[in-house]
């Protein structure tokens, strides 16, 4: 039993180790607060070489240099907005992994919800068609006719009722 526990713990530790970080130990800033900010910013910035990774995740050399620049700027006292806008000025909005909320990006922000709304409307229309329509009440003449027919069948069935 103890061996299993020990093995599990070892496996866990090993798995934690496998979760490799692109950030090299020598890049890490000494001030934990600044490092935290730099990490957070790095996760907001797209690696322009690999395009679907943040510079925090990427092993590309340009991403490493961008991380270095982020750390340098944070250390020099730039605010988070300053750092991000420095990058946006050079690489455009594309460099931000989270698109900004502005008119050029409205399709991106509202597109999925618009499509969802479309689906909801289509489903609603479909459901409505499925619902059986309540028949319009019979006119007086029709009711009379039915009553007459009913009376007829009643008397007929009374006549030849199977014994």
């Amino acid at each position, binding site marked *: 039993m103890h061996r299993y526990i020990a093995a599990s713990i070892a496996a866990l530790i090993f798995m934690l180790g496998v979760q490799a970080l692109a950030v090299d130990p020598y890049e890490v800033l000494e001030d934990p607060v600044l490092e935290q900010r730099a990490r957070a910013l790095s996760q907001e910035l797209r690696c322009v070489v690999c395009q679907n990774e943040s510079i925090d995740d990427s092993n590309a050399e340009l991403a490493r240099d961008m991380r270095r620049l982020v750390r340098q700027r944070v250390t020099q006292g730039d605010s988070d907005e300053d750092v991000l806008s420095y990058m946006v000025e050079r690489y455009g909005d594309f460099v931000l992994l989270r698109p900004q909320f502005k008119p050029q990006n409205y399709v991106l922000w509202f*597109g999925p919800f618009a499509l969802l709304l479309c689906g909801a409307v289509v489903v609603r229309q479909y459901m409505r068609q499925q619902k059986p329509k309540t028949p319009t009440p019979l006119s007086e003449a029709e009711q009379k006719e039915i009553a007459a027919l009913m009376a007829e069948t009643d008397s007929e069935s009374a006549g030849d009722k199977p014994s």
Partner: protein
Amino acid sequence: MTEETSNEVTNETSTRVPRRRWIAILPVVIAVLLGGVFAKRLADVKDGLDPTVLQSVLLNTPVPDLDLPPLPGRDRLEDGIKTEHLKSEVSLVNIWGSWCIACLAEHPLLMAIQGQSDVPIHGIAWRDDPQASLKWLGRHGDPYSRIGQDPISEAAIAFGVTGAPETFVVDANGIIRYKHTGPISPDDWSNTIQPLIEQLRQ
């Protein structure tokens, strides 16, 4: 249940039906709008827009602040690139590296441009070992007026570079007027870049 009763009353029906129709055509409207956006983009791609190439946001803005050290051992009196070096005449700024295969492919054209045109080509040796840069230039020829080293991508990031080679056309006031991503082809040179240089010189 309320719908049934409203259906029976004629004047209520007339007010309700248009609203429902409007809802029914909403998906069509949204689909047409979204389709329009996508169609526009596809048409742009068909017209030659390469979605993998980032359009530079630095067009028509001043060159970034630069102070790049010279390549030691290169026998030019003036070397290294500072911002003021890009503010006196129309010039090309070419980002390259000895490690970059596409730069090698582009290199003969840069040599030809240097031979036939008097536009200075400034080279930014990006993330390169100075010895390797020097050796590369010795082997393939040196088309550059000035060379500045950029070992940690300071200039590359400042120029919004995503890969090598990239070439910028800078006017006499140090304003970036054009960016070419990837190797310049002879057609790019004679159809686009050379006419632009002539135009900027007037």
